[in-house]
């Protein structure tokens, strides 16, 4: 197994899928000649040419719709939206067309597109470049949503997303492109559904996804070393559909749950996981589940304010301690 950076893993998946199928194309702003804002498509323009590696105008709804139209005829577009904040402009085509066309055509058409976009709050980019939008995407029937926490997932999820016949939104993270991790040397297709126990523990389950998996793991280390509490960490790499069975199974073992999310709390991953806990395993719970979320504000520019708006591993530790009345 080789160590790759997250961006290299995404790039490798693009390259392999484009080599495998001449109908796989990629498109987005600055992805071709410039190689991509986060280098996810570096070198592909030279290798596959301008017909398949398409530098688009700044027309998010337009080029997303164009990708969807091409997908009706079997083309498999990987659409990069430079920052998830700009995905709002493409929501019409993603929600109104891609997610619904199979259904409203009675199964005659499908839109097997992949839309990838970095979400999350980076460093002092201000309110209009710091959105976390996974919760907006995950509530829509007909659209799969996955969010990789590691280079291996970034690689394997993209590979499966390209081959899958459903539209898939991949929520990446601006701060994670340089994250290193092992990626299988051979081809690897990550499941688009399910969840993964990334640390076993008997006392409490910490649910995370994407960057918050890493906060949960840090918190689990502190809880173990300093408090003798063994946390299980569950990576929700699939946000739509959520892994109801996996969520319930973990909590049936640990009887406590804390959901760690980078986004504001309302109508998000945390509230959805809590609803699942209520529906699936309420009587297994020894303590009320808690959410660790961002503060409900547009992300401020000022560094201290920005930090204060976001959750940290420390907040996760405190939430767990509160569940143990410590």
């Amino acid at each position, binding site marked *: 197994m080789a160590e790759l950076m997250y961006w290299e893993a995404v790039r490798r998946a693009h390259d392999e899928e484009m080599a495998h199928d001449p*109908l796989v*194309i990629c498109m987005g702003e600055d992805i071709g000649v410039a190689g991509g804002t986060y280098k996810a498509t570096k070198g592909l323009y030279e290798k596959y040419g301008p*017909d*398949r590696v*398409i530098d*688009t*105008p700044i*027309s998010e*709804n*337009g*080029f*997303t*719709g*164009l*990708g*969807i*139209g*091409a*997908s*009706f*005829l*079997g*083309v498999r577009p990987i659409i990069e939206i430079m920052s998830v904040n700009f995905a709002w402009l493409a929501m*019409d*085509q993603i929600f*109104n*067309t891609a997610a619904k*066309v*199979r*259904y*409203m*055509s*009675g*199964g*005659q*058409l*499908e839109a097997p597109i992949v839309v990838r976009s970095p979400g999350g709050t980076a460093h002092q980019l201000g309110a209009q470049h710091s959105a976390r939008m996974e919760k907006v995407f995950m509530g829509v*029937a*007909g659209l*799969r949503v996955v969010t990789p926490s590691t280079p291996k997932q970034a690689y*394997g999820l993209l590979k*499966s*997303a390209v*081959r*899958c*016949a*459903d539209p898939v939104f991949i929520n990446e993270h601006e701060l994670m492109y340089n994250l290193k991790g092992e990626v299988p040397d051979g081809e690897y*297709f*990550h*499941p*688009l*559904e399910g969840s993964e126990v990334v640390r076993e523990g008997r006392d409490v389950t910490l649910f995370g996804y994407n960057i918050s998996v890493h906060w949960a793991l840090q918190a689990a280390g502190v809880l173990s070393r300093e408090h003798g509490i063994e946390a299980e960490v569950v990576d929700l790499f699939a946000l739509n559909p959520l892994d109801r069975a996996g969520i319930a199974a973990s909590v049936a073992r640990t009887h406590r749950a804390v959901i760690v999310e980078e986004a504001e709390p309302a109508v998000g991953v945390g509230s959805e996981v809590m609803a699942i806990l209520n529906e699936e395993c309420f009587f297994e719970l020894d303590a009320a589940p808690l959410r660790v979320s961002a503060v409900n504000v547009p992300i401020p520019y000022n560094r201290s304010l920005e930090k204060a708006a976001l959750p940290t591993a420390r907040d996760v530790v405190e939430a767990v301690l509160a569940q143990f009345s410590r």
Partner: protein
Amino acid sequence: MDAADKKRLLREMLYARRFEERCYEAYVERKIGGFLHLYPGQEACAIGVLEAARPGRDYVITGYRDHVHAIKCGADPREVMAELFGKETGSSKGRGGSMHIFDVKHRFMGGYALVGGPFPLAAGIAKALKLKGEEEIAICFLGDAANNQGTFHEALNMASLWQLPVLYVCENNLYGIGTRIDRSTAVVEQYKRVCGYDIPAAQVDGQDIEKVYAAAREAVAHVRSGKGPYFLELLTYRYRGHSMSDSNAYRAKEEERQWSKRDPIIMLRDRLIEAGQLSAEEYREMDTGILEEIEQEVIPFAERSPEPKVEELERYVLADNDPWVHGGAR
């Protein structure tokens, strides 16, 4: 076009007119629900343009006023009516409704309800055709008011930039629901708006099917020859309200009267009669035959077809048993 072709087109337009009028009745009888947008007045547009293309082979996409486009592509009118009745035998298995007729086997790629939504979809279909090296083209029909959406500008820019084989047809019926074009649009003549994208364009009388056909032939030939997109504006008029819930109160009766004098069906009929290629008697028989077909085949098919099964409510949300969901073939 010879006399036989013209007679066939006359019949197709009359069929479209009677079909839509029957939809109106079925709506009043509450057999059809939801939004229903009818086509009377505009028949020469879809039928004339597609006559110049290869219906059933070229890819066609449009908005919510879509029944006639689908039928001209080859959709079975019985299935279109069944769709309006919400039946399992409908074009979209009762899941779509009037605004979402799909008939992919005839390359009718659907009716879409978001104004302007199909502009980029058509460009994408054209991109796929170009990538695959196929000789079919994409044809997108939308209204005048749709041209005020961002998607119009975004898609036309990309279609021109990448020289995509797509024909955009603007059915300019002068209104977007109740707002007349000069109250919503700075440049009223729509074909002028595309010069900013360096796309060749023409404006023709959308009530005269022979003119529509002639203009569309040129447009289609341009697009098919690989020279990139083309924009065709057709000046037309819808006779009924925007949808069934619209009374047309915003339109002057005099304006409606003027347009009704230029009815696409009557104009072609009279021309054929004058040329001695059709008799009044033949026309009446044609009409009676159409009405009988609709009453005896189309409506009963829709009436008698089964409803979709509630147990299948969740079908078609996602692909069935896609192996890649689980990481590939096992």
